[in-house]
């Protein structure tokens, strides 16, 4: 009997979701559904890259310079082994894209998570404590907001790289990238959470909680956070696209992921050198993958923002 009740509850949650406005607006928009599908496919292929990719592009031993700069398989000079051609090191473009998007996505997701956690925490602190702490945090936020994220990321990345030096770059590149990108994006989360916190802080249940002796901070966490999850999710989705672009840009500029285990941006950087001599595939396919990913995530973010905006309903 109890098992039925549980499944009943689960079914009713699902039923509620399916009946909700959000699902309605989701299924109404074919574009959004396609975007979600594309995002899912890219995520999946990135996740399962080691399993589904035909070669391992990072295994230096398996590369052969004899196979370098081959065009895609449908081209006369192509090799069916390398579906999308190879780059100047003999790496299979298809496999490199799969592994590369893995890295790009990893950087994107982790840096967004980092930015979100940092921003939410600072927003809560600023909103709750008010006074000088609030003023300082918000001032920093305002100033930082007037600088474009790419510049901040570039500065931090560049400076840290300068400090760390060449040898350790391979290992530290990921961390440095995540931190620089994360640090450039925390502000939006902080602002949103702060305004929610300010609203909640004055509510009576916070005073009541104080009287009882419960730490109001924890109470607010339980009440502010749910309110704020919607906008935070929208910010995070759009942020993800931006983070991926930022990583790709930094890699393209040469200060991101180094060339031995390339991300999509790094691949484009390599391919750029060969554009004029006609080897277009090294740039085109990573570029297309990058564009598809960012486009899809942006569309999802757009839809999410409209779906969660009470004013537009």
């Amino acid at each position, binding site marked *: 009997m109890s098992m039925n009740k549980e499944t009943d509850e689960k079914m009713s949650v699902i039923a509620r979701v399916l009946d909700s406005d959000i699902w309605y607006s989701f299924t109404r928009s074919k574009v959004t559904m396609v975007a979600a599908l594309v995002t899912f496919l890219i995520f999946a292929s990135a996740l399962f890259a080691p399993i589904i990719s035909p070669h391992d592009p990072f295994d230096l031993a398996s590369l052969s310079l004899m196979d370098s700069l081959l065009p895609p398989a449908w081209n006369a000079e192509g090799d069916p082994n390398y579906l999308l051609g190879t780059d100047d090191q003999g790496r299979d473009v298809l496999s490199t894209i799969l592994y590369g998007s893995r890295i790009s996505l990893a950087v994107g997701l982790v840096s967004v998570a980092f930015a979100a956690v940092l921003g939410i925490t600072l927003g809560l602190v600023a909103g709750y404590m008010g006074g000088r702490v609030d003023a300082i945090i918000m001032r920093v936020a305002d100033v930082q907001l*007037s*600088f474009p994220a790419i510049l901040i990321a*570039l500065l931090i990345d560049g400076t840290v790289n300068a400090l760390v030096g060449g040898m350790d770059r391979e290992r530290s590149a990921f961390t440095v990238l995540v931190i620089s990108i994360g640090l450039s994006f925390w502000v939006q989360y902080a602002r949103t959470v702060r305004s929610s916190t300010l609203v909640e802080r004055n509510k009576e249940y916070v005073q009541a909680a104080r009287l009882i002796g419960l730490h109001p901070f924890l109470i607010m966490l339980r009440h502010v956070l749910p309110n704020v999850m919607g906008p935070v999710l929208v910010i995070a989705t759009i942020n993800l696209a931006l983070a991926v672009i930022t990583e*790709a840009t930094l890699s*393209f500029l040469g*200060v991101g992921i180094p060339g031995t285990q390339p991300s999509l941006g790094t691949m484009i950087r390599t391919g750029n050198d060969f554009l004029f001599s006609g080897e277009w595939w090294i740039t085109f396919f990573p570029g297309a993958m990058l564009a598809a990913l960012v486009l899809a995530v942006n569309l999802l973010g757009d839809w999410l923002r409209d779906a969660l905006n009470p004013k537009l309903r």
Partner: protein
Amino acid sequence: MLAFIIKRFVQSIVVMLVVGLIAFVMFRFVGDPVDQMVGLETSIEDRERLRETLGLNAPLPMQYWNFISSAAMGDFGTSYQFKRPVADMLGDRLPATLELALVSAIFALCAGIPMGVFTALYKDSVLTKLFQAISLVGISLPTFLIGILLIYVFSVQLQKLPSFGRGEVVDIAGWSTGLLTVSGLKALILPAITLGLFQMTLIMRLVRSEMMEILRSDFIKFARARGLTPRAVHFGHALKNTMIPVITITGLQLGSIIAFAIITETVFQWPGIGLMFLQAVQDVDVPIMAAYLLMIAFLFVFINLIVDILYVVVDPRIRIEKA
């Protein structure tokens, strides 16, 4: 209003000082200035003397002060890599970046505002859907990819436009401009579009959403109820109110255009300060990095100040005290 301006001015100075501090820390502690300047064979005594001359043994606050005051007067030190005063190098490359930034900003505004207005007023038109598709592309494609794409289409395939460099430049009183030659103008087209596309998209989306929001407001409803012409309602009332947030954000964007120029200059090998900065990052040429940071910060702070003042001037609610 004067009080407001003074307050903002003071804030700007504070920000500059803080940025100056960051730049100073970078300058002083990333790599060793003396090591960068001398060869390997130089004796330790000579190095010490150099240290003394450069003032590197003075107390830190004093070093900071020296750094700030020299920077304020235009002395940014000497490049490690090129052994030239950074200020000179900046002066050489600045016109290239500024021209590029200006042309792309104009492009972004002239394309973005009308597109935004159109998509707000004619929501169901086919043209609107086209504009929105373009805006999506503009926001999603990273700048460097757009640049590469444009190069591939117009330089590699069509061979109509140059893919690198500024073309011929003309020197006018120390300012080298590419606007006066055909090849200079041709060279400007692709980079300007690349740099401006993202901004254009932002402006278009902003104008659209602001205008749609305002078109729903009460005073627009009242304007229509008074029988005003559609032109008066849309342009006289709605557009004018839209312009305030648009001015603000566009002004702020101007600064980020200059920063984004780094990417565009890399793709097109445009000899501006962005490219210089990037090379400095790769060479760990700290004086250039610090100088660039200071300059960009100054630009941003200055632009923000102007925008804030402009805002006050334009919006009577802030300008005139309540009765």
